């Protein structure tokens, strides 16, 4: 069985590090819809992919990945919203782990929203 001792060692290592996280105002927020609609259409692997990639790419200081409930667009789930300070919110719809990877590369790192996956790309009826 994995023990809690290992966690103590991690704590020791972390203790000496200054808090690298920027204040919430300057951080980009990536929000995944995780109500019944989102979960049933595959939000969990999308969220896992996003948080893993943000960690792997060392972006945890400036990007936070969180979750929210249902925003009322259930037919477009899984939905991911990207909120950058001073910019208009980008809403990605019908997300998959593969699309999430692309969003990390091109939008979160590259700075250019992936238009074809956004809500703006569909005809709202």
């Amino acid at each position, binding site marked *: 069985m994995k023990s809690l001792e290992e*966690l103590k060692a991690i704590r020791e290592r972390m203790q000496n590090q200054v808090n690298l996280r920027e204040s919430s105002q300057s951080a980009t927020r990536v929000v995944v819809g995780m109500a019944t609609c989102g979960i049933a259409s595959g939000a*969990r692997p999308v969220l896992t992919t996003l948080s893993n990639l943000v960690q792997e790419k060392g972006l945890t200081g400036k990007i936070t990945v969180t979750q929210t*409930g249902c925003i009322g667009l259930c037919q477009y789930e899984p939905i991911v919203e990207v909120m950058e300070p001073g910019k208009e919110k980008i809403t990605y719809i019908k997300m998959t782990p593969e699309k999430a990877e692309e969003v990390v590369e091109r939008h979160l790192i590259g700075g250019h929203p992936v238009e074809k996956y956004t809500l703006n790309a569909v005809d709202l009826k």
Partner: protein
Amino acid sequence: MMTELSLNILDVAENSTRAGATLVFINVTADRAADRLTISIEDNGCGMTAEQLSRVTDPFFTSRTTRKVGLGVPFFKYAAECTGGTFSIDSEPGRGTRTEAVFVLSHIDRMPLGDITATIHTLITCHQDTDFVYTYSYDGRSFTLDTRQLREILGDVPFDVPEVSSYINDYLSENKLETDGGAIY
């Protein structure tokens, strides 16, 4: 419709966090001899009134305002009952809510448990203000992850820093493997 029981667990536990729970107990108990899989989720959130409780398994009832249906609890109930199992939910305003679903393990209509480790990991790392006590049992063997213990060791280091997050993931997956020997069901 959910594709895994662990997604039902994620969904119902999300309701607990939205009800303002500070402590959520999640138990997953598989017992092959008894041919039962029991899943319970218990929280100390705001609870429900008798009126809300009486309608919670009705798919056309929800306390949300973003849409008119509430399918989470009905899905979970149906998933249990269609295996010949049982479902119960008890709640009291100000005290919290307890949900229990019992599945007939060998029933052909029982959904697979799915990636329970991902569900618990998601809950813990995305709800830093909520404590989770997760117990997984398989044929009498079990392990528990209590985030209150993690918090005591970590102090102000959050659960979503990469080192801690991957420790939690390893803890869950390694201990599950030792508990059930890698059984897939």
